[in-house]
């Protein structure tokens, strides 16, 4: 057996075990998207990064050597995991209503858990097409607001007023304007006035975007 230390907890694992297995045995959860025990450990998602003796390595690929000191959670690791997740999301179209999982997937729940910005409330909202509140004449900020509330108000039939703040991604803004606000004929002036009311100001980057969009 090999002795390793996970976050200071001593644990014994069989030789050739992986860091992720050692952490599991010690009772620590490491977030991961691509790892499947015994089936897949190609370290493609890189969400499971941990520190082994101070080096940042993927936990699903790196072996647990005798005396290794493993850290599964600190500020740097959280930042790195978030960056890796944002990179994954940058090529992923978030249309949960059209997805077979209907928003109940590990990617979305991990993104929420890590506070990844880039997913709007619309991604979680079950109303679309004719049921979309924008289509019913209600000005809803869901397309611009950070997801994570499970579209609570919108599900109840009242428009999103943006409690969770605005998504900073230009991709999302473009998508919001093209596929939501302009599609349903919402006046940009109305939209900015609502943003100013509930967010107290119109963020400068968003202002430029809306001005360009309205031309």
């Amino acid at each position, binding site marked *: 057996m090999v002795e390793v230390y996970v976050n200071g907890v001593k644990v014994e694992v069989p030789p050739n075990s992986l860091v992720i297995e050692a952490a599991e045995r010690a009772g620590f959860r490491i977030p991961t998207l691509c790892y499947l025990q015994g089936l897949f450990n190609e370290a493609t998602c890189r969400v499971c990064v941990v520190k082994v003796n101070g080096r940042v390595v993927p936990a699903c690929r790196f072996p647990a050597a005798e005396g290794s000191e493993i850290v599964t959670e600190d500020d740097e690791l959280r930042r790195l995991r978030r960056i890796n997740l944002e990179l994954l999301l940058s090529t992923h179209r978030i249309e949960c209503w059209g997805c077979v999982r209907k928003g109940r997937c590990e990617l979305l729940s991990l993104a929420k858990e890590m506070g990844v910005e880039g997913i709007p409330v619309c991604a979680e909202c079950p109303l679309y097409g004719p049921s979309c509140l924008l289509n019913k004449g209600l000005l809803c900020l869901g397309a611009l607001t950070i997801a994570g509330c499970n579209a609570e108000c919108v599900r*109840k039939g009242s428009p999103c007023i943006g409690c969770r703040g605005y998504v900073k991604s230009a991709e999302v803004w473009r998508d919001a304007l093209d596929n939501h606000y302009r599609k349903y004929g919402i006046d940009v002036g109305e939209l900015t006035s609502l943003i100013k009311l509930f967010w107290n100001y119109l963020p400068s980057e968003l202002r430029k975007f809306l001005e360009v969009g309205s031309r």
Partner: protein
Amino acid sequence: MSSFRISAVERVAGESELIVSVEGGDVRVEYNSVVSPRSFEALVKGRKYKEVPYIVSRICGVCSHAHFWASNLAIESALGVSVDDTTAALRDACNKIQIVQNHLIHLAFLALPDYGGGNAVKNYLGRLIRFNKVLNEALQLLGGRLTNPNVYFPGGFTAGVRGSHVEKSLAVMKGLADELGEFVDAVLSVEIPDLRDPSPEYAVLHNSPFETVPNGGPYVLDTSGGSLTVYENYRNIFREQIHDGSTSKKCLLLDRVFYVGARARLLNLLRRGGVILEGDLKYRLSRYWDLFNTNPFSNVYAKALESIILLKNVMDILEGYRGKELKSVALDDSLKGGHGVGIIEAPRGLLIHHYVIDENLRVVNADIITPTVMFSRHIEVATETLVRKLVGNNGTVDSSVESLAEALVRAYDPCIPCAVHVIRG
């Protein structure tokens, strides 16, 4: 000590100060709000009518249902829209639950410690936290969210509330009334100071909150002098005044100092023969008739008794709607503007919302009068009477008067953030 100033006198929210000056046997009291203006009446100007309830419900976290409902009523009146009985009853139920919740918080954590009721609170603390949790759950089921409800618009409910929510909220509140009874007994056993009300004038909305308010106005107002019909003339009846040094207005009923709230409501209920009450509760309430009539401190007892009455009342209402399917509605924009007034009984007393809506269905003017504005003057005259009674022969008062005056203000349960206005001199 001849004069004193108490800052941050209330314990609910916001800041107000009580300034008492005793000069040559003459006592003068000022009760001033020192919170900076929040401009909600200005914020809603230019907004579409549908957005207004969402904005104004954020005036206050503890009374968000009251503001939400009052603004819905006012907008419906302005647009000439009426709602069905189910909608009216369920909105009313939400408001009642919030009244009970407000009363319990006020009694346990804000008022009782003033009367040496610390033990009662200590004994019931665990249960009180649970009561609060249960009421929160019920509110969340019926109103969509705990604070700032989101399940109804002007016109009726959105798709978000179903008959099963009524069932569930009844289930969570089951057995609460009996347990609450014990706490109410404990509240009624604390001793309150003696004080003769200098201005026993009150105003309540006829048959509210014990019976459901019908659609919109005109409203019948019961006062100690008789009934009044109120609608667009409300400004002639509730006369607001601006005072130097206070960021909130102070209001008179015609030209008289008056009070609103639980004491006024129960007094009016008794005057009407306790219409909704049965047996024991009616007898129990009638024993407080004299006290409610004469002593402003008795608002604490009134809150305790009212929470029992309203809780039973709300359970009865919900029983009637058990299993019924609620239809969602959506108003189209072919409506015409107008102006409307919404008056309801909020936890602390009468709440008035008034909106003028133009032909584009945008609000052009808004006016909100809150209960704290209404009883501010009554706090002043009652404190004057209290201090005058306790002034010694040498024209000074001792320090115990300070805490009594503080307790008196808190017996009214003033909540300042609702009350502030932009004051132009």
